[in-house]
């Protein structure tokens, strides 16, 4: 097992009140890890994921990638490796294909072409055909939109996926589709792949994770 992501003593204060939102949070994600992050509402789960994705400035502590510090100019590359999926990841106007191609419109991935065949395989797993690619996003159900967001993330080929309550607003069928998608991605690909899944549902944490981190009032209380 190699160490992928390590957070050391992360701390974040509220910019307005100065209250600590995260305090002394240390955790490690190793290759092949399937982690769940649980805790009551307001315990700092989303903030912790955002901190791990380097989306917010930290007030103290450090995030390391493969034991190294991450310099400013490497942050976009790091975020491709450690991909954060927002709770309600936005689906942009246009078609599903348009959304899945979005990461490939970025300068960093200019040399890469959109992996259409791989996409079709993933879609087939979900019981969708090639015509799904041409569906307009405004006609999709909430579950389908979330699947598009997850697919878009997977096609970037991250090593670590940070999922922020991805199934919070989904019905049972869509939830199981999503779990299957992430599970297959993790188990079928390179051994390195790992994820950290925020969930408020203990049974989901049980299903999807081998280890659970408990967060309360911005601190890790058990793992």
């Amino acid at each position, binding site marked *: 097992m190699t160490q992928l992501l390590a957070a050391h003593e992360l701390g974040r204060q509220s*910019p*307005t009140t100065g209250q600590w939102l995260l305090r002394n949070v240390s955790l490690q994600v190793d290759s092949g890890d399937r982690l769940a992050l649980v805790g009551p509402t307001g315990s700092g789960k989303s903030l912790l994921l955002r901190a791990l*994705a*380097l*989306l*917010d*400035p930290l007030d103290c502590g450090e995030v390391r990638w493969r034991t190294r510090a991450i310099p*400013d100019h490497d*942050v*976009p*590359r790091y*975020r*491709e490796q450690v*991909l*954060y*999926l*927002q709770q*309600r*990841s*936005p689906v*942009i106007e246009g078609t599903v294909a348009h959304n899945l191609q*979005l*990461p490939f419109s*970025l*300068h*960093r*991935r200019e040399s890469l072409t959109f992996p259409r065949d791989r996409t079709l395989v993933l879609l087939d797993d979900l019981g969708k055909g090639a015509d799904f690619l041409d569906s307009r996003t405004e006609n999709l159900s909430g579950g389908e939109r979330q699947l598009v967001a997850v697919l*878009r*993330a997977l096609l*970037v080929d991250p090593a670590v996926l940070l999922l922020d309550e991805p199934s919070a607003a989904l019905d049972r069928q869509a939830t199981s589709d999503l779990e299957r998608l992430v599970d297959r991605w993790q188990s079928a690909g390179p051994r390195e792949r790992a994820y950290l899944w925020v969930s408020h549902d203990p049974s989901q944490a049980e299903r999807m994770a081998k280890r659970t981190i408990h967060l309360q009032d911005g601190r890790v209380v058990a793992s």
Partner: protein
Amino acid sequence: MIDQVSYLELSYWQVALATLLILFNGALSLVLKLGLGRRLLIAASRTTVQLLLVGLVLQKVFALRHWAPVLGLGLAMVLIAGLAAVRRTSRRFPGIWLSSTLSILVSSWVVAGIGLGAIVRVEPWYLPQYAIPFLGMILGNALTGISLGLDRFTEALVQGRDQVELYLALGATRWEAALPAIRQAVRTGMIPILNSMTVAGLVSLPGMMTGQLLAGVPPAQAVKYQIVIMFLIASVTGLGTVGAVLLSYLRLFNRRHQFAYHLMRVT
């Protein structure tokens, strides 16, 4: 140069006569119970006092014929425009005042300099009769563009925060994540001047041209001046808006490719 400038001189009595029209407005407000009397009085008094004061200052600056008071007045005008542009925005962040004032200063002075020195070829370059009205017209319009641009930029970032962060999370640089908002902002800032250039002369005669016609300048000459000033305004609006939006971008997106949403405050 134009030499046969001729206009009718106005005495203060004649101005007082015009006041009667405002009094009539006031009477109308009383009769119809519009409740505008007080505001009308304040507005009319402000117009009178402000313009008389400006007249005095300009009289003085025109008489001095020295570059220092012209530059001083120009600087004061820029500061007022920079602050006015921000006052019209609905969201603020630390550094917005500097972003606005600095971009107005650089864009208006550079373009006014080109206009006065290279296009109209005023000699000496600081001749207040040209320099001050030019700067005034440029600033008045540029500040509209800049305030619209800044307003749109912060609005787009706040409304589109999820999308900005989606881009960042997918590995976009801060520039790629902000570019859609930057584009929207600059487009919005340019709309008023594009509109006024489109309808110039059709809907109403532009202010400077009107003034020149009143002063007895031949229409063909007045038109040329108006075209030049329109282009100067368009150029300052473009430069100023791009400058203000880019400086704001640097404030709101740090070197670690993070969007500093928490800096934004609603006014």
